[in-house]
């Protein structure tokens, strides 16, 4: 599955929600990240066929997506999903099955796994339970393009991990694409293989987290004496997000020779490059974007 955006733009009132965005996404799990108001939800609504573009073109497997013409096999789960009043999980299944091909066993299994009652009205569920119910429904739809908008808000860590593994199980390596919009990058950790960073409706960066890192490394060190941020900067090392506790320090940098420089100056008993989390990489990329503004 290939979703392609060609210089797409969308205005909402006076705001340019999407401004000349272009990208190509192939199957897998894509994390759509950006600050609040960056245009994530608007982009998902354009992909779902809710909004029509003002300019540009959206293609799904080469077929244009537009108003009255959503991509075939698309399911959109908005941040605040719709459910007719009084419907239970079973009722929601029946309702969705009017429009989508659904796998009832999947929704039933997930309901059992999460301990969700299938006969009680969804409106009586707690926030987290509602979210689990909607996600169970979304994951039981036989969709090729799944669009999730802030779908993990309110989930407890255990449920989050279960949902993540369900998504991987159902979508990875099956010519399907999941786009998950979230401002909470931690929830996308160990899930998204590609990230799409948008800011003020423009593409800020795209790729795997390693690609977005742009040579960013994380250094952990234990010094003989406490070392400050300025001490390290005095060696010509760019220091990002410096944290220290006693003689232990941790920071991010783009300087590839930073370990050698620190060893030469402070001879720390322990110094090592440690892997960056997606959260750190993306938070840094977003902070960089803000600096450029």
């Amino acid at each position: 599955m290939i979703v392609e955006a060609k210089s797409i733009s969308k205005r909402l009132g006076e705001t340019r929600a999407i401004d000349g965005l272009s990208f190509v996404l192939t199957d897998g799990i894509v994390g759509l990240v950006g600050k609040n108001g960056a245009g994530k939800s608007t982009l998902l609504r354009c992909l779902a066929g809710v909004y029509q573009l003002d300019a540009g073109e959206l293609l799904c497997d080469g077929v244009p997506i537009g108003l009255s013409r959503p991509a075939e096999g698309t399911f959109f789960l908005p941040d605040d999903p719709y459910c007719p009043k009084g419907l239970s999980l079973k009722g929601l299944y029946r309702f969705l099955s009017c429009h989508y091909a659904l796998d009832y066993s999947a929704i039933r299994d997930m309901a059992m796994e999460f301990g969700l009652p299938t006969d009680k009205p969804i409106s009586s569920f707690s926030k987290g339970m509602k979210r689990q119910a909607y996600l169970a429904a979304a994951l039981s739809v036989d969709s090729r393009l799944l669009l999730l908008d802030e779908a993990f808000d309110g989930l407890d860590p255990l449920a989050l991990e279960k949902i993540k593994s369900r998504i991987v199980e159902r979508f990875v390596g099956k010519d399907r694409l999941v786009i998950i919009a979230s401002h909470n990058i931690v929830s996308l950790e160990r899930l998204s293989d590609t990230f799409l960073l948008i800011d003020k409706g423009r593409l800020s960066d795209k790729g795997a987290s390693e690609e977005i890192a742009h040579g960013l490394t994380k250094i952990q060190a234990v010094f003989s004496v406490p070392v400050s941020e300025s001490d390290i900067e005095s060696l010509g090392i760019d220091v990002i997000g410096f944290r220290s506790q006693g003689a232990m320090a941790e920071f991010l940098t783009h300087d590839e020779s930073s370990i050698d420089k620190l060893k030469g100056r402070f001879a720390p008993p322990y110094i090592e490059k440690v892997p960056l989390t997606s959260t750190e990489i993306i938070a840094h990329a977003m902070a960089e974007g803000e600096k450029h503004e």
Partner: protein
Amino acid sequence: MNRKYLLFEARRWLGFVIVYFALLSAVVLLFASVSYVSVYGTVQPSNVDGTTINSIAIAFSVIMAMLTFSYRYDRKSSDYYLSIGEKRDRLFIARYLVSLVYLIVPYVIVSLLFYLVLYCRGAVLDYGLGFLSILFGIVIIAASYLVSCFPFSRGKTYFEGFFYFFVMMAILQLGLLPLSFFVGALVKSDAFMEVCLKAVEYAPSLALGPALFSELFANDIAKAAVTDTLLKALGESDAFLAVFSTYVATYAVLPIAATVYVYLAREPSGEKMGRPSKGPSFERYSYHFLMGTAAFILGCFCYFFVYLSILLFVVYCVVYYAVASLYARTFKVSLWDLYGYAFSLVAMASGIVLAAIAAV
């Protein structure tokens, strides 16, 4: 359109339809039982039943229009329905038709039930006039539903704009055809009046025409006065041509109105489809223009049924106020709304006058 979805929609409004059907049946049976034997020796239903039943049907058609298109006023439901992969036009048609069937079928059933009650009570029924009566009823419900759907659906696509236009054309055609038939076939205006009198006598006063005439001809003085007036209006002119010229007047104005409406209310972006918002001025303007157009159509329509126009106008005002409140999310009436009311009043009066001029 997906059959499963249609069935689901049908099930959703079942409660509403049961209430509608029950209320209609109760009123019909009540009035059927208080009918009297007229001076012509036939069973005559109560004078007020037609208006009451029509009022119920009109009120329910307004509510139905609100319910049918309420999803467009809620972000959650519009997100859902606009992303289901069904073409919007099909979605619109499906909901429109399901609701219309729900309004018309109970009405027809209750009308037949009413005939049955009258028949059992010894009334001499004219089946042709009975058919005419039900047809008028369907026309008034369909017209009222369509006029209500205009504002509530916030039709902003070209498809919806032209759909409204053509359906209104069809409804007017359907409603006026029987009149044309009588006027055209009988040629003589006094014969036309005779037919009207017969319709009043035999039809169960369920629908538009008979309801009006049953009130008009409740007593001989009123009958004579109205007969004279109508004979003067129709007697010296070619009656068929008069009705036909009203068509022409309506057909000349509606395409222009529809084109301007679609141009002003078009929604190339689609984002306001499901969003209640104050919106830019052109949107508000087009909304009042839309209501004005509806008023004009009502005016044209009411020319033939002058008495009923009072009821229709009251319903129209209530709908207008409900729409304006829903739109602005306040029950306060703004100065802009007052301009809108005035504009609509003028439009409705213009419709009546234009139809009258065209007829004479």
